């Protein structure tokens, strides 16, 4: 069947982890569910296509995590990375409700892998999906099919009919035709707006032009805009997002994990002027990778270059794109289209500030520069062994945080005519589109998946409850 139902119980907008958790949960409670995914089938699943793991609270080691990660520790981590910029009650709720995440996922076909070498230091706190996010999506969609959920691809929701604060129908463009589908409840799990560069400019100005979109190109924030226009309250600012350093040669969209470059802590990072601008060795990489997207975004042309020498080039994961290479700093500068004199000066000053000491690549080794601004606090070895390698890096945005405000039932919060906050009767939100409630700023790996799963399930429960009443 390729048509579109005219009336269902629950419409889920989106096709990623949050959407499918909501759809499956509602369908298991006997609701008739329609999933409207804007992307074609091959690219279904939003950013979940590119994820790898979920951060969830657990009290003991299992087959796929190496130890306990109690609720309190998770909560402290979240407070630290967001610098308190979070709805503390919702965060606590999220973390407590994450405890059965792995069980729920396993029961719905998702498979985890044992903690292996590639699990980037997160093997205690995060469970890794065998095969990654697309494998997870395949499992969810197979489950959805068994449950009789109607999933439609290339089905873009263009507008919502909302009467007296209640959702009644969605306007859908599907296979070139306009449809109106009625439903008794709506779950919006359509992602952030990171693929809409114009919207990004509201937060970032012209710098947004230099951003690459790590994930799906279909997350343009249409649903977020519609809900905001109808008076939904928002959480987080327009410039807040999860962004990391990725190879500048990556595709504009959908480059995913393989475009990531991990050279930073063993490198010196220079901007277009050939100058350093931040302490590359501030902390271990898993704790710092998420700040470099924002740092790069503030550089000229939103680009910077990681410079390493032969003795450092094998210390981090190999990159998908080969680095530029030269036997001299001058040659490398030319290859990177930098001012050779400026780069030579930066490297010379940095090398002069390096001090002897033991280099330990796996731990904070305290091998710091002296008298250099900005300093390099760890792993500061001279860049002096040819050949030299240069990695051009740009900010790669994963997802935006600005979203609709929700309560613990995942109901979207509206402001009524008298200025009061009222939860929507039958509109729920889950995933990136409401991530700003939890993530006011900062990021910790695997939190996005937790938000999608927990609020997706809560939204599915709430929607199903409305239908059964």
């Amino acid at each position, binding site marked *: 069947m390729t048509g579109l139902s005219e009336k269902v119980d629950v419409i889920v907008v989106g096709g990623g982890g949050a959407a499918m958790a909501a759809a499956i949960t509602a369908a298991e409670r006997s609701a008739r569910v329609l999933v409207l995914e804007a992307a074609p089938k091959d690219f279904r699943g939003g950013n979940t296509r590119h994820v790898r793991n979920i951060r969830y609270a657990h009290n003991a080691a299992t087959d796929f995590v190496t130890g306990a990660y109690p609720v309190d520790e998770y909560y402290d981590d979240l407070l630290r990375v967001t610098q308190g910029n979070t709805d503390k009650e919702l965060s606590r709720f999220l973390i407590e409700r994450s405890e059965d995440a792995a069980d729920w996922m396993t029961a719905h076909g998702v498979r985890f892998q044992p903690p292996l070498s590639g699990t980037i230091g997160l093997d205690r706190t995060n469970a890794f999906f065998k*095969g990654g996010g697309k494998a997870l999506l395949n499992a969810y969609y197979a489950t959805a099919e068994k449950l009789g959920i109607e999933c439609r691809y290339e089905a873009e929701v263009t507008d919502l009919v909302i009467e007296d604060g209640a959702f009644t129908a969605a306007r859908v463009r599907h296979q070139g035709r306009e449809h109106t589908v009625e439903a008794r409840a709506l779950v919006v799990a359509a992602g952030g707006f990171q693929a809409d560069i114009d919207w990004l400019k509201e937060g970032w100005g012209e710098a947004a032009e230099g951003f690459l979109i790590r994930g799906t190109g279909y997350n343009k924030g249409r649903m977020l805009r519609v809900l905001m226009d109808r008076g939904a309250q928002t959480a987080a600012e327009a410039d807040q997002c999860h962004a990391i350093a990725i190879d500048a040669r990556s595709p504009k969209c959908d480059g995913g994990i393989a475009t990531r470059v991990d050279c930073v802590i063993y490198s010196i990072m220079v901007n277009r002027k050939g100058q350093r601008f931040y302490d590359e060795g501030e902390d271990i990489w898993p704790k710092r990778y998420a700040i470099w997207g924002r740092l790069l975004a503030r550089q000229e042309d939103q680009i910077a270059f990681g410079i390493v020498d032969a003795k450092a080039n094998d210390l981090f994961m*190999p990159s998908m794109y080969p680095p530029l290479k030269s036997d001299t700093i001058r040659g490398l500068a030319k290859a990177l289209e930098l001012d050779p004199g400026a780069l030579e000066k930066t490297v010379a000053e940095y090398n002069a500030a390096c001090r002897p000491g033991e280099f330990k690549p796996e731990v904070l080794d305290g091998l710091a520069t002296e008298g250099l601004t900005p300093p390099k606090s760890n792993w500061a070895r001279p860049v002096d062994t040819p050949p030299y390698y240069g990695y051009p890096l740009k900010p790669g945005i994963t997802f935006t945080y600005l979203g609709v405000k929700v309560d613990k039932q995942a109901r979207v919060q509206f402001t009524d005519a008298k200025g009061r906050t009222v939860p929507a009767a039958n509109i729920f939100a889950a995933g990136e589109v409401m991530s700003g409630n939890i993530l006011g700023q900062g990021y910790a790996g695997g939190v996005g998946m937790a938000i999608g799963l927990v609020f997706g399930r809560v939204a599915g429960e709430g929607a199903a409850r409305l239908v059964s009443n």
Partner: protein
Amino acid sequence: MSRTEITELQGDQLADLHQEARRLMTICNACRYCEGYCGVFPAMMRQTAFSDRDLDYLANLCHGCNGCYYACQYAPPHEFAVNVPQAFARLRADTYRRYTWPGFLSGLFQRNGTLVSVLMAGGIGLVLALIHLFQPPEVVMGEHAGNFYAVIPHNVMAWSFGGVFLYAVGVLLLGFLRFRRDTAPRAAETALSVAGATHDALTMKYMGGGGVRGRMDGCNYPAESFSQVRRWFHQMTFWGFLLCFAATSVGTIYHYLFGWQAPYGYTSLPVVLGTVGGIGLLIGPLGLISLKRVADPATQDGAQRGMDTGFLALLFLVSLTGLALLLWRDTGYMGTLLAIHLGTVLALFLTLPYGKFVHAVYRYAALLRNRREQRF
């Protein structure tokens, strides 16, 4: 890629197979999401650069389970167009051609279906012609209470088939040694690497799907959903083959060591081994052929279908004729059935080094290197 294109692979296209495999491994090594599926990705992660020989090794370590294809965020139509199972299948076929002996016979891999048919018809015809030439019709058509040697003297059978078999084994061994020399130079096997690789081969470990104990769902074969069915059919084929081989070996020992001559009773060891193995060799190949017919072409190297099917069909026919021979060995059909059976066996032995069977040789060499390197 059409059949003719792959048949006429020349030097530069051959380089393309390595180039494509290298491109994929470079992307995969920056991603590593599939490390939980099989041996290929952890083996890849032990390296940062890939020589042609490394890629030959990785391609032969790949069991074609397709887990990584359906899980891949970069699979076509994504612009990175990552399709590891197909690229490795093509490269594997290429290693079969490059490592065979004598080199001028490497073209047989591409015309394997034809080769198998011709040799089978020829083999049956030859054996039939020979027995009619050397034996009077009343012997060929007569009843011998299961005594094959009444039609074909034991020595003739043993020497001719033993000779062909040894040739096949020699060519296979040569391929193994040359492949191993190239892909794992100066490597010394240990008891541990041999035991480990043998375990991985006998259990078909990498058709299991990998992951957490009790949650291994098998291959994405013949299509996207997970299934152990390919592993089962392959195990039946594999153990069926081994049991039939064991039956022959036991028979040989009986004959030479104890002087016990065939025919052996229905409950004797050689007949029981042969019958059980034979049943495996009926179900297994038939199952694998039927799976192949519905397999997702996206993950397959279509050019190898003739080779795969030819080998499987031959195994099936060897078993079918062997069981028929057992069933009717007391009748006047024995002589003719024997000729047909021996003709198929002759074709099987002759095509062993020039068809799908060779995958076992290079797969085992790859499993050995994999186990050696796992220790580091």
